[in-house]
């Protein structure tokens, strides 16, 4: 058998039982590689359950900087007998299967083309610890120690991390280091270390940070000046508000009075949550809510009101697999259409598509400026993959000169200078009208906000011409919006080509990697990452320039493609779909495969292993 050989390019997957404390040990492993200067991307694959079901943690290690899912597993560390049959099947030929051999492996599972490494984790723990909880927790730390030996990791980095992690709880430092050493020693004494796959200190991380998208969003809301957060708990969005609260407690307490410069209300449901955001924004405070698919469905009526009455509203949708409750702890990009056209009647909503934690922070803060500038809901579409996993990201930055853009708001002096205020009067010709905040002026500027039709002066009317004129103005505003939302990012392959890919959000890393594979296959294609809806003119021009555009997305129904077809009146033959909707993030191999399959004259050649390893940098 030929064993896989690779330095700093591999995929390792941990198979655990949830609720057993494996998350922090696995995290320790990934962070150690990050601190060794090697790009890393860990992904949690967890059940909708608190204790007892299988959970996985997949870590992509890539000195070349590929941070998406590649597909396939080179090393499987399996401590969950329940998922073992499936786990061992997933290992690449020549890969490594590491398991707890306190109980012998079922002979029927044994594969001859995989290296099998047994660590008696349960036995070591039973010998070492009396307390059952300790036995369980340290088992995880012990396998991290063993991996350090097997993969030739820098042990000092691990001990340094443990010390950082337990700062303030110093009693825990030594026992954890001891557990690491137990594993390390066992592996050293019983195996030829290192194995074929190794980690070597590098300098490919720079000043990057390891951060999940939801924390970045919470911080974006802090920096963007949000003072009111209203929400109803739902995975995978809960940690957005958790992060906002954590940082608000630290950074938003008035030093003089000790009182809070923010208010968080846990609402009775998502309808109420968005209603609170609408109320606060109407009153001139910056407010947001965070939710996922089921909550978005409930919020539809209010989103229509905010669209029609033109109330700034910020909503973060951390998407998960639908429909209905779907797979609540798995990722998808499947709320695109529901969000873009949220609510009955002719509505169109502004969407932002971040693809990194840095963009979550930037777009999160930007949402508040855009909502007030454009006086409409801004729905930031992230997903579970970006939101709940640590992602390697550019560091966060804030320009201290930056002022919040409060948009077109009239104060008392403005009103004094005016003949008559018209809330829905398009004075500037850009479709965006002036608004007033309640309580501004004793005599002027008050109006009735409503979801019913009204004239330019906010007086109720059922006259068809007035209604139609207002709807037309909203379309004119839609054109203006195209100038304000983040522009797409194009990547030119440097050659003449009639083929392109277009993607958004978390498909970016895998798409980039797939394009490199395809280049090796001899296929050069241009790429565009869209970052907002409405699409601006660059997107239209890009589509026009190419014969064939593959739209990569993580849902069944090709929702972004539908949106492109609807907005640009394109025929279906130009736009091809590359889809993934099994609840896992789309992988580079999957993208390559689907593109090749649809290329005229190209026969699909499954990637051969040797080629993959070379693609992986060895």
């Amino acid at each position, binding site marked *: 058998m030929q064993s896989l050989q690779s330095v700093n390019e591999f995929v390792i997957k941990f198979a655990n039982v949830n609720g057993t404390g494996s998350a922090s040990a696995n995290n320790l492993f990934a962070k150690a590689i*990050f*601190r060794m200067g090697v790009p890393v991307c860990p992904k949690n694959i967890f059940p909708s359950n608190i204790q007892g079901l299988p959970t996985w943690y997949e870590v992509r290690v890539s000195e070349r900087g590929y941070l998406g899912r590649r597909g396939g597993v080179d090393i499987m560390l399996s401590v969950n007998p329940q998922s073992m049959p499936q786990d061992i099947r997933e290992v690449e030929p020549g890969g490594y299967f590491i398991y707890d051999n306190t109980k012998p492996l079922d002979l029927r599972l044994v594969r001859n083309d995989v290296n099998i490494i047994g660590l008696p984790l349960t036995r070591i723990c039973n010998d070492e610890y009396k307390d059952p909880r300790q036995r369980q927790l340290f088992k995880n730390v012990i396998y991290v120690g063993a991996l350090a030996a097997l993969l030739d990791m820098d042990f000092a980095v691990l001990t340094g991390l443990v010390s950082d992690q337990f700062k303030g709880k110093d009693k825990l430092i030594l026992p954890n280091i001891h557990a690491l050493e137990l594993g390390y020693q066992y592996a050293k004494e019983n195996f030829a270390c290192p194995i074929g796959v190794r980690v070597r200190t590098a300098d490919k991380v720079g*000043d*990057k*940070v390891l*951060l999940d998208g939801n924390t970045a969003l919470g*911080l974006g809301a*802090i*920096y963007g*000046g949000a*003072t009111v957060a*209203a929400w109803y708990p739902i995975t995978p969005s809960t940690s957005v508000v958790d992060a906002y609260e954590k940082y608000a407690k630290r*950074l*938003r307490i*008035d030093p003089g009075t000790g*009182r*809070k*410069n*923010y*208010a*968080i*209300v846990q*609402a*009775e*449901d998502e*309808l*109420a949550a968005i*209603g*609170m*955001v*609408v*109320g*606060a*924004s*109407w*009153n*001139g*405070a910056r407010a947001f809510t965070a939710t996922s698919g089921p909550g978005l469905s409930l919020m539809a*009526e209010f989103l229509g009101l905010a669209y029609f009455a033109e109330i700034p509203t910020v909503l973060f949708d951390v998407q998960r697999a639908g429909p209905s409750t779907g797979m609540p702890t798995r990722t998808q990009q499947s709320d695109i259409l529901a969000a873009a056209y949220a609510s009955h009647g002719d509505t169109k909503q502004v969407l932002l598509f971040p693809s990194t934690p840095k963009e979550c922070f930037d777009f999160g803060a930007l949402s508040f400026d855009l909502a007030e500038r454009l006086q409409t809901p801004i729905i930031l579409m992230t997903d579970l993959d970006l939101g709940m996993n640590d992602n390697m990201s550019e*560091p966060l*930055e*804030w*320009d*201290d000169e*930056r*002022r*919040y853009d409060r948009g077109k708001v009239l104060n008392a002096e403005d009103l004094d200078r005016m003949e008559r205020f018209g809330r829905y009067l398009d004075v500037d010709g850009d479709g965006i009208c002036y608004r007033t*905040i*309640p*309580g501004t*002026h*004793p*005599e002027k500027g*008050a*109006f*009735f906000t*409503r979801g*019913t039709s009204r004239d330019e002066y906010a*007086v*109720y009317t059922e006259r068809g011409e007035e209604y139609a004129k207002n709807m037309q103005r909203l379309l004119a505003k839609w054109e203006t919006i195209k100038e304000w939302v983040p522009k797409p990012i194009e990547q030119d392959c440097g050659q003449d080509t009639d083929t392109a890919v277009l993607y958004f959000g978390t498909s970016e890393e895998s798409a980039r990697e797939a394009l490199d594979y395809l280049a090796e296959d001899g296929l050069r294609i241009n790429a565009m990452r869209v970052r907002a809806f409405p699409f601006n003119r660059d997107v239209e021009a890009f589509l026009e320039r190419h014969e064939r555009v593959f739209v990569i997305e993580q849902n069944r129904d090709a929702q972004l493609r539908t949106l492109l077809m609807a907005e640009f009146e394109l025929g279906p033959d130009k736009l091809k779909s590359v889809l993934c909707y099994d609840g896992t993030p789309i992988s580079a191999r999957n993208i390559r495969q689907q593109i090749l399959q649809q290329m005229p004259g190209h026969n699909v050649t499954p990637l051969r292993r040797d080629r993959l390893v070379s693609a992986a940098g060895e």
Partner: protein
Amino acid sequence: MSYQIPKFRHPDLPVNELGYTRADYEGAISTLCAGCGHDSISGSIVRACHELNLEPHRIAKLSGIGCSSKAPTYFLGKSHGFNSVHGRMPSVVTGAAMGNRDLLYLGVSGDGDTASIGMGQFAHAIRRNLNMVYIVMNNGCYGLTKGQDSATADEGSASKKGDPNPFSAIDLPGLALQLGATFVARSFSGDKGQLVPLIKAAMSHRGFALIDVVSPCVTFNNNAGSTKSYEFVREHAEATGTVDFVPMREEITAHYAPGTGTEVTLHDGSVLHLEKLDEELDPFDRLSAMVAIEKHRAAGEILTGLIYIDKDSRDLHDVLETSRRPLNTLTEEDLCPGNKVLANINSSLR
């Protein structure tokens, strides 16, 4: 269509301390049916605000959907208003109140808007003791959708359509007490003498103040056999007592015989004088208030007046410990921690 009320004013209309006439608190001409109870309630709101010397622009009036929820168009024309979506006014007020604690929030709703589609939001606004006045214009039916029974229609009561309602009624004051409301009153649109001081007291209360106002729908539910008709209510209303409201700065004129009533000093310093008629009700005791409601209900009577008040109530801002400065007045200086802090956060993520 709404019509603006003609601007011509009689020169000697009485003005309040702010120099405003009562007309300055009015709104557009009502388009509700002539005789609709809701219009009388609007009139009481106008009177209460005028007499309380409130600055109209410091009041925000919010509602859901229904004939009742249209009513805010017909009073307080100088105030910002928000006609939101059906049953969801409480959440909009919650957000608005979080954003600016310094305005007076007046919520107007119907019995359909509150007791059916909006029941959840109503209940949770009470639990949070949101600082607002919540007026239910209660006609026992859905006026705007042409008279279907609502959840506050009494069992056996028949609307114009004729069939007696087979379901038990939700009693909003009783429910509010159970949910922890800190100010609970009931009144009748036709009894301004009672309603106006109750509105004033509710506006001076810190916390959630519910006034359930029976407000007959002349078009669909004012017939014989309805328990929400003018006639039935006039005959069956039992007042807890008389209520007189004395604003903060006014002296209490000593026209009450000593020992005949109770004086309550409200949060803003105004005084409520309660002249009790109901011997058993103690309006400072929640249990007593709940018992009184049920007893009168069992007797086929409608208990009106101030039913319960907790004058030391803590509102949502007190509980959350939010800044005393309205959150909507805070600027970058107060809100944005700046790049240096962010650099430290970055370091903690490496």
